């Protein structure tokens, strides 16, 4: 009798677990599903019934309406690509280098420098945005992609992460034996240390890329030339189209911005999630 009741409570419990999990999964999917489907439906269809579970056949006409309103997704896409990949390269390379400096060498200011990095770890760029804007305005760097890329060289949080990773994985013997073989320090870092850091770099690269891809605040205040617009800025323009509500194209515009993220995410989902977990443990 007892084992029976335990079994039945377990069945109830398991049913609850699965129901909740399925519900939450649907909660993640539903908005995007509606978005993708509505991107293929006409404004009229959407106004009749705004939840379409299956695609319709107005993708092309929505595309034409969208691009007809000076919405050029290719420009936004390529700018976002340049910024995100540039920033990612800068961030992972120089953070690894700085972390290596913190781990492999004993220098007098090492500990103070590291304490400093920890202290500025969470200072967000946003609080200094007024000064940043005025600074960029004075040196005529507004409408330039560089102020959105170069600051990534100094990424305290990533330095911190990379340092923790190196502490856990880098055998100092390797560095020493490289020295004995006559390898220069810089060469050692590039050819021996960086490959060791590959897993850490890969996860950090993904997150940095996504972070910059999604960045909205700084591009919003810095970029006014539509040839320099990033994807999120283009998206923000979809909010207001005074003379007509072209819902199908709005959904299409939204879909275009997230499509690349979806592709990358579902290709790399496992690693991304492992990366989140790794980050949690390291920090």
């Amino acid at each position, binding site marked *: 009798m007892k084992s029976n009741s335990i079994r039945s409570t377990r069945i109830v419990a398991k049913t609850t*677990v*699965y129901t909740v*999990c399925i519900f*939450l999964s649907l*909660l*993640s*999917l539903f*908005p*995007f599903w*509606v*978005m993708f489907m*509505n991107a293929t439906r006409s404004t009229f269809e959407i*106004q009749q019934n*705004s*939840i379409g579970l299956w695609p319709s056949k107005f993708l092309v006409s929505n595309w034409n309406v969208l691009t007809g309103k000076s919405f050029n997704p290719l420009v936004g896409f390529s700018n976002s690509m340049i910024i995100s990949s540039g920033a990612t390269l800068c961030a992972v390379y120089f953070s690894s*280098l700085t972390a290596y*400096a913190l781990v*492999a*060498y*004993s*220098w007098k200011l*090492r500990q103070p420098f590291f304490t400093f990095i*920890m*202290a*500025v770890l*969470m*200072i*967000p*760029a*946003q*609080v*200094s945005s*007024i*000064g*940043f804007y*005025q*600074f960029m305005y004075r040196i005529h760097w507004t409408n330039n992609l560089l102020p959105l890329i*170069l*600051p990534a060289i100094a990424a305290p949080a990533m330095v911190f992460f990379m340092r*923790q990773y190196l502490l*856990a994985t880098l055998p*100092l013997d390797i560095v020493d034996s490289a020295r004995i073989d006559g390898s220069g*320090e810089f060469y050692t870092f590039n050819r021996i240390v960086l490959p060791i850091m590959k897993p850490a770099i890969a996860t950090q690269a993904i997150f940095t890329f996504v972070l910059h891809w*999604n960045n*909205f*605040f700084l591009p919003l*205040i810095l970029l006014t030339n539509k040839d320099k617009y990033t994807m*999120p800025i283009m*998206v*923000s323009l979809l*909010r207001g189209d005074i003379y007509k509500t072209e819902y199908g194209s709005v959904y299409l515009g*939204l879909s275009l911005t997230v499509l690349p*993220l979806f592709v990358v995410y*579902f290709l790399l989902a*496992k690693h991304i*999630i492992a990366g*989140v*977990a*790794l980050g*949690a443990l390291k920090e």
Partner: protein
Amino acid sequence: MHRKSISYAKYGYIFSIPFVLTFLVFSLYPLLYTVVIGFTDLRGIGVKELHFLAQPFENFKLILNNPSFRKALFNTGFIWICNFIPQLSIALLLTAWFTNRTYKVKAQGLFKVLIYMPNIITIATIAILFHTLFGYPKGPINDLFMMLGLIEKPINFHIQTGTARGVVAFVQFWIWYGNTMIVLIAGVLGINPTLFEAAEIDGATPRQIFFRITLPRLKTIILYVLVTSMIGGMQVFDMPKLFLLGGPDNATLTTSVFIYNQAFAGSYLFNRAAAASMVVFAIIAVLSVILFQILRDKDAALHRKWEKAEQRHRRAEAKEAAV
């Protein structure tokens, strides 16, 4: 050998130069600049000259007495709480389920992938998507609720304080609970499994195991999640800005949206925006100090291990050299 290892110290400095330079130019200088602007009369567009105010703290006084700013602070906190409590609760619940050794939830990987997904999507897109989804009188959510019989007539989500804030808080929750869950699961997996085995042998129920063993050991991680979430919460911008522009009646005006509005969407009150930024900065700084303490404690442990290994290494080296 010994002589050589000393001479390498300079590389520590050399390799840190790019970081330090970039930090000075792109972080520290703008930060100090912002501080300075907070004490000046810099307002209006195209103005370049800075004049310090006769009463240096005038901007700060104005900002702290500014009802909109106070409301923004309140909103920011309120929206954060409304998002964080369910975020942590659901994340903990899922963590308990996914790490439960008797449930052995199948398709965990898939669930994690789907639940985490909103975290990587552009928030600007999500904001506008939700603006559209919650449309009135026709919109997917209204249609769905009507279909399910939850409501009789469409709700205008955009003009009521409660629903507007609710949607913003929900989106913040929805974006972040997957992340929190994965962090917490990683924390549980880091706990020594023999503890769970021992508890099971002692006949502890899953509930007891979770509250007596798992939860206490997650304390640091939860604290970490809490503080980082608060720091992030202080800066929420994309969602309230693009969802309803801080409205209705400033119900979703967060501090970041306030600062943006002061500086870029009206009379270009850069000085006041800078002062407001500094107030926000002060709050974040306090939170950062707490975070610093958490991380330092954890780091100290890791570092001790490393120092020991390094010492061993050097000793071996010295021995080798001696031989």
